[in-house]
């Protein structure tokens, strides 16, 4: 079926009317071009938005305490409560699907007053008491020195990792901050590292003005006892934190004598659910891309089918001759089908190449003119190309089916009848 003769037949048939062949091919070319470009644009948008999540453990929620809104076991409503350090242990033991449970205490915050002093310089920064795992959940680049480790936690060392923003404000430009001291709320902390956070959100500036100290030394230095301000909880891969959330809440409620149905006592921000929303948005976008692309493609395929019908009509006599000299119905049908598939695939390939070329061009422009908000690296993967190709083959076959059937319905006698 795929011998050289068959191909030369196809090429002969298609090249006998160049102009028409090219016009016909353009329909499919355009369809696949639009499909590719739409999908790549969607991917570019997705890449751009997801860059903000880069490295962040998205399977994470943050939870803090609020006010109990229901009386329970003789305790009144409107009661405040605090997480305790042993809550962390309890969660780790009772919910094995959790990867990290990082307790955190915090000083400062939005609009806070000056809390950090170094010599004559003062500043207002967010100061976090954290466990070393936090760097896995909220990634940052350590630009100098090191991050907090378990040695610091165990020995309650008064050490601090400062952001580049803090360094800029508290130190001179060529001053090495490592080993130097800053005073946080009157307590001296030695600087062991500096960090830089990747972020292109609006809070990029703010994110560089944070100070991380070991959780244990924070608690001791600022009299927090065993209280925990909030927790960052990450689920293991393959589990969703959104599903584990209730289990976590139930354990906390149990331990703090909160009414089991009191949904307002624990505040949380579920990064995973947010992330899922974005994922769904992009899935929808992808579907829209496919639908539009395929619809345009269909009109191209109908064009091919149409032309093949005309071709069959024009070649009625030729088909009659071929059958008179021994062509079987299948060889005729195969010929028409192959012509249609061949035309579809060739024009589709050209469409894919042009689409990829455009994407390459956009990437080149993006690279040379610097990053653009919410759009990065539009691309299509091989899978999409494969899908597009199989769509092409199938649609080529479909486009050829009706004309091929028409072709063999022609009786040789009728085709050869001299007028």
């Amino acid at each position, binding site marked *: 079926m795929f011998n*050289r*003769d068959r191909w030369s037949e196809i090429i*002969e*048939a298609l090249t*006998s009317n160049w102009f028409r062949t090219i016009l016909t091919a353009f329909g499919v070319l355009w369809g696949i071009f639009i499909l590719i470009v739409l999908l790549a644009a969607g991917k570019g948008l997705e890449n751009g938005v997801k860059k903000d999540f880069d490295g962040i453990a998205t399977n994470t929620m943050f939870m803090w305490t609020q006010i109990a809104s229901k009386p329970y076991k003789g305790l009144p409503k409107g009661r405040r409560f605090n997480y305790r350090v042993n809550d962390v242990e309890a969660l780790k033991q009772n919910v094995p699907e959790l990867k990290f449970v990082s307790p955190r205490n915090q000083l400062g915050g939005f609009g806070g007053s000056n809390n950090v002093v170094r010599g004559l310089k003062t500043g207002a920064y967010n100061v976090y008491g954290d466990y070393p795992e936090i760097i896995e959940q909220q990634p940052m680049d350590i630009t100098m020195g090191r991050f907090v480790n378990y040695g610091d936690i165990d020995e309650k060392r008064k050490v601090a990792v400062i952001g580049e923003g803090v360094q800029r404000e508290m130190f001179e430009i060529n001053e090495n901050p490592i080993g130097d001291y800053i005073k946080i709320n009157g307590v001296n902390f030695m600087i062991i590292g500096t960090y830089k956070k990747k972020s292109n959100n609006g809070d990029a500036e703010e994110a560089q003005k944070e100070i991380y100290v070991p959780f244990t030394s924070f608690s001791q230095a600022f009299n927090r006892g065993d209280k925990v301000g909030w927790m960052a909880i990450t689920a293991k891969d393959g589990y969703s934190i959104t599903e584990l959330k209730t289990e976590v809440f139930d354990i906390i409620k149990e331990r703090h004598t909160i009414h089991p149905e009191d949904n307002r006592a624990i505040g949380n921000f579920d990064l995973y659910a947010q992330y899922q929303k974005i994922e769904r948005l992009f899935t929808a976008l992808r579907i829209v891309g496919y639908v539009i692309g395929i619809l345009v493609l269909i009109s191209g395929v109908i064009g091919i089918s149409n032309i093949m019908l005309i071709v069959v009509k024009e070649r009625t*006599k*030729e088909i*009659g*001759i*071929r*059958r*008179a*000299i*021994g*062509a*079987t*119905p*299948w*060889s005729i049908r195969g010929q028409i089908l192959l012509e249609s598939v061949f035309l579809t695939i060739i024009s589709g390939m050209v469409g894919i190449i042009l689409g990829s070329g455009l994407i390459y061009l956009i990437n080149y422009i993006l690279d040379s003119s610097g990053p653009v908000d919410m759009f990065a690296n539009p691309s299509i993967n091989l899978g999409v190309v494969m899908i597009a190709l199989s769509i092409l083959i199938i649609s080529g076959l479909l486009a050829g089916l009706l004309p091929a059937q028409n072709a*063999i319905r022609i*009786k*040789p*006698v009728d085709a*050869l009848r*001299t007028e």
Partner: protein
Amino acid sequence: MIEIKDLHKSYKMGSNELHVLKGINFNVAEGELVAIMGSSGSGKSTLLNILGMLDEADAGSYTLDGIPIKNLNEKIAARYRNKFLGFIFQSFNLIGYKSALDNVAMPLYYQGVKRAERTEKAMHYLEKVGLANWSDHLPNELSGGQKQRVAIARALASEPKVLLADEPTGALDTKTSYEVMDLIQGINDEGKTILIVTHERDIANMTKRIVNLKDGIIIDDSKVEQVKASANV
């Protein structure tokens, strides 16, 4: 070679039926050159179509070289046509975008003959009809007589048992007609069985036997003294 018994064929034309062949009986032996004559509407083309397996009879039997031809599906009919029959048409029916050589090679292509062998064979038959120098010309670069000769080469290429010619000289002037008939006679002299449908008396006289059809039956079937076409050229 060909045995036909009590062949009937009718066409439905709207509500009324047109009985075209009303019981044809005739046999053709190997090596014969037979002319089928008759006025238009006598059924001669229908008979040829049935002989060529392009059409099927309603009743009667048709045996070709000992093989009963009936209830053929399209695939088998195509194979039989390819193997047993060569067609020559009034309007040549060459494929316009193929060279003379490719046209001649086409039956061999459908036989599954390899390319090199096909070209060689096709060239041989083109030589036989005297058109070797025209092998890479397209049909529209050839004269009528040349086209018909290409068509004859094509009909011969598959080495069929029988050649069926439907008004082979109908589109040609007298001189060219005789040239073509000379070629056909030559092929017949080599032993090929040939049937020619014609309504021209002089062409029919160049065969060895004339079968006269009228209104769907054979009214006359007689051997004739063959007139050599070369004598008239």
